[in-house]
């Protein structure tokens, strides 16, 4: 058998910076996600359903809530749309849970880290993949709702623009929270099913018992344990609506604290992770 092969010379190549390397991870990650029908379906249905229900809620708010003024507080109604909670959990579970766990399981992580990227680069890229997708449910529907409300002359353009600004901040807070928590859970295991179960546990496992218990014993402070109720408190305060039973500064501190803590723990976990198999 005779085979002639070309040879190569080692070269000093002009290499692009860190931003480009992170962008390469993001591009690959997004391609991976959008090859999965589940990810596309959940994102599309989540964004569409949340947007439509938010607009419907807004449209019928005067009927559901007698005396509801057509001011900024109007937008607390779509912001507290329960479908946001449902779809954000679903998206975090379907898309986010596997972002790190899958790479650990398939040992793609080994190849990633054999390149000149840091764990921080890797995590930033993973967050940059998940956060925009989550925002399709947490931010985009609120922005569209405000736009539709202005177009239908339910509110003035001034109020609509103000609502969009607040929606960006409040929706952004929820996006950051779910991104950080989901990536943290995903970094803990090689099985994305476990991480996905963790996302549901954080949402419904805390929200439902906390709500039931708070009603049963008439102690609203238990609602602080539920991230969704914390979000509702902050959203209500942001739009100047009636309180959700708990103080918004404390709720905001809990949400921000949990987000920062989850991000830090994920960083520490990934920094220390040793790629044993492969």
């Amino acid at each position, binding site marked *: 058998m005779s*085979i002639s092969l070309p040879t190569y010379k080692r070269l000093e190549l002009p290499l*692009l910076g860190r931003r480009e*390397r992170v962008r*390469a991870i993001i591009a690959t990650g997004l391609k991976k996600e959008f090859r999965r029908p589940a990810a596309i379906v959940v994102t599309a249905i989540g964004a569409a359903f949340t947007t439509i229900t938010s607009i419907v809620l807004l449209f019928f708010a005067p009927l559901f809530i007698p005396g509801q003024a057509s001011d900024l507080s109007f937008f607390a109604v779509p912001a507290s749309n329960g479908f946001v909670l449902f779809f954000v959990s679903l998206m975090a579970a379907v898309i986010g849970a596997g972002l790190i766990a899958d790479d650990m399981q398939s040992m793609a992580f080994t*190849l990633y880290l054999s*390149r000149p*990227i840091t764990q921080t680069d890797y995590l930033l890229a993973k967050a940059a993949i998940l956060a925009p997708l989550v925002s399709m449910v947490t931010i985009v529907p609120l922005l569209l709702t405000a736009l539709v409300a202005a177009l239908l002359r339910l509110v003035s353009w001034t109020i609509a623009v103000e609502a969009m600004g607040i929606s960006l901040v409040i929706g952004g807070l929820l996006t950051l929270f779910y991104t950080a928590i989901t990536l943290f859970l995903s970094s803990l295991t090689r099985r994305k099913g476990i991480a996905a179960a963790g996302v549901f546990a954080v949402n419904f496992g805390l929200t439902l018992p906390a709500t039931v218990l708070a009603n049963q014993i008439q102690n609203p402070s238990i609602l602080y344990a539920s991230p969704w109720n914390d979000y509702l408190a902050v959203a209500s305060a942001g739009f100047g609506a009636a309180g959700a039973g708990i103080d918004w500064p404390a709720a905001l501190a809990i949400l921000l604290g949990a987000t920062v803590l989850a991000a830090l723990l994920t960083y520490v976990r990934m920094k220390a992770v040793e790629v044993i198999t492969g």
Partner: protein
Amino acid sequence: MNGVVEAAAVSKWYGEVLGLNAFTASFGKGITGLVGPNGAGKTTLFKLLIGQLHLDQGKITLLGEDPWNNVSLKRRLGYCPEQNQLYGWLTGQQFVETLLRLDGMPPAKARQEATAALKVVGLSSAAHRPTRGYSRGMRQRAKLAQALAHHPEILILDEPLSGADPAGRVHILRTISDFARDGGHVVMSTHVLYEIERVTNNIVLIHNGKAIAAGDIHAIRALIDEHPHAVRIETSKPRQLAQALARMDHVVSFEFPSADMLLVRTRKPDAFYRELPQIVADTKLEVQGLESPDDSLDAVFRYLVG
């Protein structure tokens, strides 16, 4: 300490399991073979060298630098893992390109270098097929392509020949030799001593996490020649292949562990590996994979460690 790899009393535990046990060795320039049975600690050593494991004791350097969390050092090395990984939906071209982009290579340059690297390993014709459809040998070559595509100073290859078909082995060994001839360093692991013999005389034997012998291959080979060497061949027609191989006078026995598997024992492994591609080509029988179980090497290790 001025070797390409310097390891001084390196120990690594996985809980209560000892991965490396005071491993001490110095790997010089050119190609060094790390030979040992499965579970000997080869992959652990490689993971330490590429900075993906942190040692518990001792000191290890690669190209004079501590590899742990050393991002700049990663630009200088090319790593080929043993396991098949990354995303199977990527084509060979995309697979190599993606990893080059992670190196910070501009897109056009990454495309060009990926194409060149795939050509070097003989995968040009399959470059635009998804890697999930590749045979094991093709995957090994794709992984080798990504390891050398960014022009590293050193290649760290974990069992690069595992599962490769005869033609693939020729390509891989040629590529490794060419890389070293052009001034690169290579550290490659195998549990088949005869394969590494074709590209280097420098070997380090590793067993139970310890370096038990290092240096010239010939003395160690003489020890191994006393033990029949087992080769497991994956083929759809094992009996026909056995019939063709029976003309080799050094073949001791045949076994058929499964319907698509042939286990051959030979007293002259070097001759066997040399003659096999020709026989396969002559008989037009398909060989999907080639592996050597550890047993013959184990016998030598038992001898060396007393």
